[in-house]
């Protein structure tokens, strides 16, 4: 059995539109106009058990909408979903025992309770015996150094502390799949790193399947072996991280510092990204030209310093976003 199987899944939102101003509002009362938005458009994919999947795409691509359908929050317009063999909107409660969800932009903790009371409450929600809940809380207390704030009402916590508590709360029942929708949004690098390390460990030790969306390339690069890119409700890429890089790795960036100014023109296979004083930045298309061609072009005798690097993942991804924009 796969962890997740999705076939031709679609979600269309219908929303009322109106012309501008009060006049538009009055008009909309008598003659409402509806606009249909295909947030998710016939997507199909599968996720194996134990995978860490990055489900990424530009703003408004349909990522959150997909997660909400997979977790039983939203009813799909059409298509089929099976999560751990369960249809989320038919057996929502049964599924809920087996999955955990964290939405970076929505809270599920009781804001006036302390993290400790929240965890106990979540334990009760999942019908876990109190002794076991307490043991798990103790375990997470060590991992995340919760001591400092475990007895402060959630409303008094910082964003990062709160997010860690959200993650702990969603893991109290040791789910098989963890859905994370932008878990690192707005967090500082130290906490981000802490969360990443933890997710990796969770996946390794408990074999938890991770379904992650994020705009932070660091999350994706450090955690995920497989990427699905969505744009405009469509899947535009479904591949391993390695292939994604490899595919776009036939381009190298050459940055050189020269001792004299030289004049260069674009040649086929080598394009000039930056040419400022003695500093040059070239992009070499390895299918057409080699690195040595580029160095020859620069004239090796005049080079003071040189740096050859891969295209950053961030650039690769944003290029895919742009190319598939329609």
């Amino acid at each position, binding site marked *: 059995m796969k962890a997740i199987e999705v076939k031709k899944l679609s979600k269309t939102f219908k929303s009322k539109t109106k012309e501008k101003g009060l006049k538009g509002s009055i008009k909309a009362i008598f003659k409402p106009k509806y606009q249909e938005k295909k947030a998710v458009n016939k997507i199909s994919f599968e996720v194996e058990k134990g995978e860490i999947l990055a489900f990424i795409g530009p703003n408004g691509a349909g990522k959150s909408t997909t997660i909400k359908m997979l977790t039983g*929050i939203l*009813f799909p317009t059409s298509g089929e979903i099976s999560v751990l063999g369960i249809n989320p909107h038919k057996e929502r409660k049964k599924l809920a025992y087996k999955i955990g969800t964290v939405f970076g932009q*929505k809270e599920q903790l009781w804001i006036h309770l302390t993290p400790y009371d929240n965890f106990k409450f979540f334990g009760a929600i999942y019908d876990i015996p109190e002794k076991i809940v307490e043991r798990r809380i103790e375990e997470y207390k060590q991992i995340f150094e919760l001591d400092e704030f475990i007895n402060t009402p959630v409303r008094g916590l910082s964003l990062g502390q709160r997010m860690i508590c959200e993650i702990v709360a969603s893991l109290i029942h040791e789910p098989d799949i963890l859905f994370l929708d932008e878990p690192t949004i707005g967090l500082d690098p130290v906490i981000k790193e802490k969360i990443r390390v933890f997710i990796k460990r969770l996946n390794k030790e408990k074999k938890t399947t991770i379904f992650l969306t994020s705009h932070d390339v660091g999350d994706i690069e450090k955690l995920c072996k497989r990427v699905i890119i969505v744009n405009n409700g469509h899947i535009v890429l479904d591949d391993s991280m390695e292939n994604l890089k490899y595919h776009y790795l036939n381009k190298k960036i050459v940055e050189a510092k020269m001792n004299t100014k030289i004049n260069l023109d674009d040649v086929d296979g080598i394009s000039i990204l930056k040419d400022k004083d003695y500093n040059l930045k070239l992009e070499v298309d390895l299918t057409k030209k080699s690195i040595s061609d580029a160095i020859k072009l620069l004239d090796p005798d005049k080079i003071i310093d040189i740096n050859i690097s891969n295209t950053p993942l961030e650039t690769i991804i944003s290029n895919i976003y742009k190319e598939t924009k329609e």
Partner: protein
Amino acid sequence: MLTAVKNNFKIMFLSIKYNLMRCMENNVAFMTSIIMMIFNNASFIIQWLTIFALKETVGSYTLNDVMLFWAVSSGSFGLAHILFNGIHKLPDYIEEGKLDAYLTMPKNVLCYVATSSLEPSAFGDLIYGYLALIIFNFSIKNILLYTLLIILGSLIFTSFAVILNSITFFIFRFSYVTEALKEVFLNGCLYPDVIFKRAVKIIFFTLIPSAFASWIPVHLLMNFSLNKFLILIIFTIFIIILAFIVFYRGLKNYSSSNLMGIRG
């Protein structure tokens, strides 16, 4: 199945307990809101005292009878806002996409939402209800029967609110209408049935079921009849089931908005 029901009740109790703990964080505010509510309700007695100073009876009702309507209504209302106040937040939850957190839990959404909030001043209503009963119609039998009847009343009122608030799944910004209808429901409960015309009575027995939340319970307190009691039980079960059906139908339309804005 039975353990599932038991576990659901456990969560409801736990939610209510946590809500109570929250109220008690600020004891002064909590007590003040309760006492204010009792005074607020009591101030309406003056209106009736004035009427009964001029007339012996209204319809066939004495002052004591009229006070039964007040006792039952504020008792049911109070209990509903103590136990199930979350239902009255449903329109906000729907419009702001806040149901997500309830939908990812392995519990009954409606029960869990209902107990997610508690209105502190509702204790004032509940206490007032008991005071009104004790002062004007005291007997041990009355107190026991009254307790049972306000539980039914609170369930009827809550179910009615669920049905109304579920309309928000289909029409946004419907809560103004909902609030107005709840007000009508309450007024229907507070006033003795004899003052209403036939057509209005029919409405209160059907579309806005104040009759079941207040009139029938009051008659049972005045004069117990097994038939009426059974009708009341059957109606309560009926409206609870209807509330669940309407809510779950509405839930299919839930759109989980990504609300981050400050202005509504």
